[in-house]
């Protein structure tokens, strides 16, 4: 018998399922309450991919820009004592960051002093200028600002090396004009750091006034007594003490009349702020960049894992086939 006859005979062989089995299968099929298949991986991917892309895009676009913060941050330190109570602007010794107006903007910490109270006002302002020449010009302008507001410099130190220049000035500015001074000085360059310290001296002066009043009362009483050597000596001591207290008080008031403004100008290279307001495709480029980074990471991590998984799968398939072949090799 040829193979053709053989296959023809095999094809002609009919095996029909018995009626009992047919009935049993019908009963099984009658229990079919399987809902129409709604979930497929393809459908899931159609939904999952845009959702993942949207999440990635939202993360990229809503992510705060660290560079921007570096370029414009302002360091605020110090505490303000006002009306005898401490008003903290930020943790002492621990810098607090806040946005500033950037180049040419007014300082945020131009805190006004309280009129009618004696306070010592100190301010520190660090500015970055674009060149050494600008630093030189800035020193001149700062001195001019101080003199125009009735103030004066107590120290000026300027140095330059190659293309980098810096200057440190200590200016005395009438307290009444310190806000204006800080605002005008801030306009000289980009604020890199600022600090304000206000110390209220009014309580101490009030106590000194009361002490002087008591001493003067004692003096009046001594003068009313019968003059004697002892009385005269005590009167002289009291007068001396009163005069010393009055001098101290006057010195405090003089000091408080002027605010001390330390100004640091530098042309040192600054962190170049990132360009903003790029083209309309900038966001897409950023998103693609992140996607690329993610893809590289996924490849670097995923490839060995995928290769390992493939090897395991191949080995498992090989073993399974060997076992199947062994199982089916019997007649």
């Amino acid at each position, binding site marked *: 018998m040829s193979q053709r006859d053989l296959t023809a005979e095999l094809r002609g062989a009919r095996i029909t399922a018995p009626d009992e089995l047919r009935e049993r*299968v019908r009963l099984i099929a009658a229990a079919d309450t399987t809902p129409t298949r709604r979930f497929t991986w393809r459908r899931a991917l159609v939904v999952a991919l845009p959702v993942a892309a949207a999440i990635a895009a939202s993360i990229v676009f809503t992510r705060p820009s660290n560079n921007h913060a570096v370029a414009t941050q302002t360091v605020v330190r110090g505490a303000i004592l006002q009306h005898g109570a401490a008003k903290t602007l930020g943790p002492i010794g621990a810098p607090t960051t806040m946005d500033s107006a950037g180049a040419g903007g007014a300082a945020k910490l131009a805190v006004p002093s309280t009129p009618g109270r004696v306070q010592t006002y100190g301010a520190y302002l660090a500015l970055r200028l674009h060149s050494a020449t600008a630093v030189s010009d800035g020193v001149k302008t700062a001195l001019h600002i101080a003199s125009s507001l009735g103030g004066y410099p107590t120290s000026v130190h300027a140095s330059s090396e190659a293309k980098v220049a810096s200057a440190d000035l200590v200016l005395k500015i009438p307290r009444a004009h310190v806000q204006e001074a800080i605002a005008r000085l801030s306009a000289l360059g980009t604020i890199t750091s600022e600090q304000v310290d206000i110390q209220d001296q009014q309580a101490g002066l009030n106590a000194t006034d009361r002490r002087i009043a008591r001493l003067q009362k004692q003096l009046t009483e001594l003068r009313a007594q019968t003059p004697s050597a002892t009385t005269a000596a005590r009167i002289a001591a009291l007068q001396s003490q009163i005069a010393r207290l009055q001098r101290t008080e006057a010195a405090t008031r003089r000091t408080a009349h002027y605010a001390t403004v330390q100004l640091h100008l530098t042309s040192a290279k600054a962190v170049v702020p990132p360009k903003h307001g790029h083209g309309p495709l900038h966001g897409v480029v950023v998103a693609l960049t992140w996607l690329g980074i993610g893809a590289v990471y996924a490849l670097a991590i995923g490839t060995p894992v995928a290769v390992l998984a493939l090897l395991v799968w191949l080995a498992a398939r090989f073993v399974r086939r060997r076992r199947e072949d062994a199982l089916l090799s019997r007649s």
Partner: protein
Amino acid sequence: MTTEMTFAQAAEAHLDDVYGYLAWFTGDLAAADDLAGETFERALRLWHRYDPRRGSARTWLCQVARTVALDHFRSERRRTRREQLAAVPERFEEQFAEGLSHDLQIALGVLTAGEREVVALRVVLDLDAVTAANVLSISPTNCTTRLNRALKKLEEALHVAA
């Protein structure tokens, strides 16, 4: 077959094919009867996974039947090992298909289950090489090789019998 085919329609249409495949595969009509019932029970549970774009319902049902039959073979082997009867070969049931000559029925006994399976799929059910290979989880070339080997064995057995 359309994508709208229900399980009941698929079962009705392909019961004979599945039963015939299992009969050829196991060489035992009683076992084929049991396994066919089990196959359709399992197929009903898995019917939601059936994707008509990936193959016909007949192919899919044959795949399920094969898994059921392999489980049957494994359990049978464990049973025979327990009973220390592993050395006793199973007898291929005679007169299990209508239209086969006596010599061919006898000759079929020389085939292994794996060879009978490929004959059932390729010749009796007339599946093409790719579809049969898909059911067997082997390559189409391997499937064709197995079929040729099986037919050659049958031919030799018939020659010897003659």
